[in-house]
């Protein structure tokens, strides 16, 4: 028992040290490896200025970055980690709007429209996120045509994804929607080194929120897909066994 406690204490200390190390690294925009679409259009001088003025934070898995309805005061740029953006329905049901990973930005739509944040951003794994003040982002959009055009490309792609989700909810069965959510996760986060396991861990409730259905139906449907040898469930992890068949089953190829 004593040895077990020592072992646990040692691992907690190691974890704490690793987290502290991550927390202490201040990412710089100048040598950022994440090729962010909006910031790519900035000149070296602009990047240096943004880097000097920006802040950064470390968020633990499950921590909220900003809430739906909060006054929008800046732009969040994910340096590392994964984030989910959700909206709350009138009945308290959560709907996943999208997922975001390193290199992606959050909150830009609210800054452009001047509204409050339209969704709640939550870390689905430990994240390091940079923060650019609203005024700085607005100045960049007004003075740099490249930043503005690239922002519009992001907005266009958000719009396309939202429209596809609308069509999916209006026209597709629950099974098709759950498969589509698995494919969305694959497209966003990719596979682990084995080339089969999705590189993201979500609870069944979170998958249900993505597909716009209940947790119970999600559990039943995932089990069915596993019986059909399309996927394999290992705890919270999902392995895709037959990507082609999975795509066919939700008419993605149509």
């Amino acid at each position: 028992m004593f040895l077990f406690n020592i072992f646990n204490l040692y691992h907690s200390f190691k974890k704490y040290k690793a987290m502290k190390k991550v927390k202490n690294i201040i990412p710089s925009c100048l040598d950022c490896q994440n090729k962010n679409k909006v910031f790519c259009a900035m000149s070296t001088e602009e990047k240096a200025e943004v880097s000097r003025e920006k802040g950064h934070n470390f968020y633990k898995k499950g921590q909220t970055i900003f809430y739906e309805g909060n006054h929008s005061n800046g732009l969040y740029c994910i340096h590392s980690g994964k984030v989910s953006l959700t909206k709350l329905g009138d009945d308290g049901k959560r709907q996943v709007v999208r997922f975001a990973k390193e290199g992606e930005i959050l909150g830009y739509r609210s800054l452009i429209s001047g509204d409050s944040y339209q969704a709640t951003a939550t870390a689905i794994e430990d994240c390091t996120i940079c923060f650019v003040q609203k005024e700085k982002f607005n100045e960049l959009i007004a003075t740099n045509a490249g930043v503005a055009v690239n922002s519009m490309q992001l907005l266009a792609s958000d719009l396309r994804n939202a429209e596809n989700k609308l069509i999916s909810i209006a026209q597709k069965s629950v099974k098709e929607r759950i498969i589509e959510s698995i494919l969305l996760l694959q497209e966003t986060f990719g596979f682990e080194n084995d080339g089969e396991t999705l590189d993201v861990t979500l609870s069944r409730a979170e998958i249900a929120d993505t597909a716009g259905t209940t947790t119970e139906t999600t559990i039943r449907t995932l089990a069915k897909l596993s019986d059909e040898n399309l996927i394999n469930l290992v705890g919270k992890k999902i392995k895709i066994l037959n990507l082609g068949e999975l795509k066919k089953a939700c008419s993605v190829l149509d």
Partner: protein
Amino acid sequence: MEVQEFFELTKHAFNKEAVHVHHYKKGEYLFTKGHEIEEMYFLLEGELAIEKNKQLIWIAKKNEFIGICSYFIGENNFAYSAKANFDSKIITIEKKEFDRVVQDNSDLRNDLMQLFCQRIDYTLSNIKVFSDLSRKKRIIDFLVRNIESNQKVINQNYELHYSSTQIAEFVHIPKYFTLKFLKELQAKNILKLSSKNITITDFKGLKLLLTLKGVNL
């Protein structure tokens, strides 16, 4: 002269030679899915239904650019169709000219960004409507949102120029069900149906139905 209004609205940012005016009759298509993007469109008068896979995704109103989503994604062909809901006057702008003005004109860029935000908000609300609301409430929601965005008030009644068939297509609900429910609302003196129009006589009553959690809704 017809194009003059467009130039005033866009603060003379576009070259006259690259801009043309076209008229479309109700039900006519400006373009269908797969059509090559050679020009951008601006709706000067009328209304357009933007559809994808037989699903209405947006209703374009007066003074709005059409085709911007495919354009900014960088596609060569449109991913959706645009159909005139009413007789419509359309301005076409050659793609090269549109490229030039997007790069040069920050006012146009701002307008387009606002339009994108508006469309994303509308689509996200629609997702909520489709996943949370019953079929009847989806019909009510459609009527309420259209009245709130149009504000056509005649003698304290609100006029919507849609037939029950069009509404059924918009909300993706069978035509017979939509007509039956609209007739139910007519019996409750909430609206009046005619072949091409719907007149909402009790807008407050209609909005109230959205908040009720009754068995019949």
